């Protein structure tokens, strides 16, 4: 299992290189994923519980929006994750395109449905927040529209990676779309500044001007941590599946399957 990738023996930085090459080799990564996904998943669950308790019970109601602002605790982390996952997907896809890394292709493919899920959460919760606050479930606002485009990009990547019979060509096609779509990330981020939008600007990540009550802020930070850990755990689950499937003819998969 160990000797899957032979390190180049005489290179100077070979110790670090070897470690890295091992880490990204499918059998090693599979074992790493199996060991860590459960722990990360449980930690995420604990943080979700703490964040929800803080956000729904302990935090005071907002002076303008009343209790409806509590949607923030799932909306903002989901929206942040939708963009973060896209960046991870594009980076993984690029590594697959440039260096033909199998792990890169597997990670990119695993990111697409997760990113779509976060984007969907951000859109649905945003819409449920928009109705009482703006009076409409949906408006063609720059922020909302660019986030919808992000959903289409994720779905497009999922569809392309299924579209061709040859899995590696399909991965490459999806990777090109993923990398090209990166242009949408700054558009989403700056949409609230570039256009006159209904969506509010950042209120947490503003330096030197703490504008949020601590009892409101702490649950939000916990929720951000929970979403990130959840993403890692769910990603490891998906990547391990993907690796088993892609490498089904290899020795290490046979060994894993035998148990």
């Amino acid at each position, binding site marked *: 299992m160990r000797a899957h990738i032979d390190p180049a023996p005489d290179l100077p930085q070979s110790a670090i290189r070897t470690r890295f090459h091992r880490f990204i080799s499918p059998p090693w990564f599979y074992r790493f994923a199996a060991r860590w996904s459960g722990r990360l*998943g449980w930690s995420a669950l604990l943080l979700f519980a703490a964040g*929800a308790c803080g956000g*729904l*019970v302990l935090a005071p*109601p907002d002076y303008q929006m*009343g*209790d*409806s602002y*509590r*949607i923030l605790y*799932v*909306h903002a982390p*989901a929206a942040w994750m939708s963009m973060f996952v896209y960046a991870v997907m594009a980076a993984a896809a690029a590594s697959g395109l440039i260096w033909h890394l199998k792990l890169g292709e597997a990670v990119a493919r695993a990111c697409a*449905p*997760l990113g779509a*899920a976060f984007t*969907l*959460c951000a859109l*649905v*919760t945003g819409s*449920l*927040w928009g*109705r*009482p606050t703006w009076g409409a479930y949906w408006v063609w606002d720059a922020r909302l529209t660019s986030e919808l485009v992000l959903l289409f990009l994720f779905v497009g990547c999922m569809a392309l990676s299924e579209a061709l019979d040859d899995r590696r060509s399909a991965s490459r096609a999806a990777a090109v779309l993923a990398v090209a779509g990166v242009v949408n990330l700054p558009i989403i981020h700056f949409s609230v500044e570039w256009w006159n939008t209904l969506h509010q600007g950042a209120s947490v990540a503003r330096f030197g001007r703490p504008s949020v009550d601590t009892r409101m802020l702490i649950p939000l930070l916990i929720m951000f941590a929970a979403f990130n850990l*959840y993403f890692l*755990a*769910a990603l490891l*689950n*998906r990547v*391990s*599946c993907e690796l*088993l*499937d892609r490498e*089904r003819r290899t020795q290490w*998969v*046979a060994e*894993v*399957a*035998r*148990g």
Partner: protein
Amino acid sequence: MAEFFAMGGYAFYVWGSYATVTAVLVHQYAAPLIRRRKLLRELAGEARS
């Protein structure tokens, strides 16, 4: 308690958001685990035959 569930009149929006997020995230976490179990069973069968 009833006051907590009423969410100041925003119950549908607040609980709707939390329910959607919970459902989507649980599904995203569980689906690959189920698929992996199935895949491993299938591969173990292939290895034996």
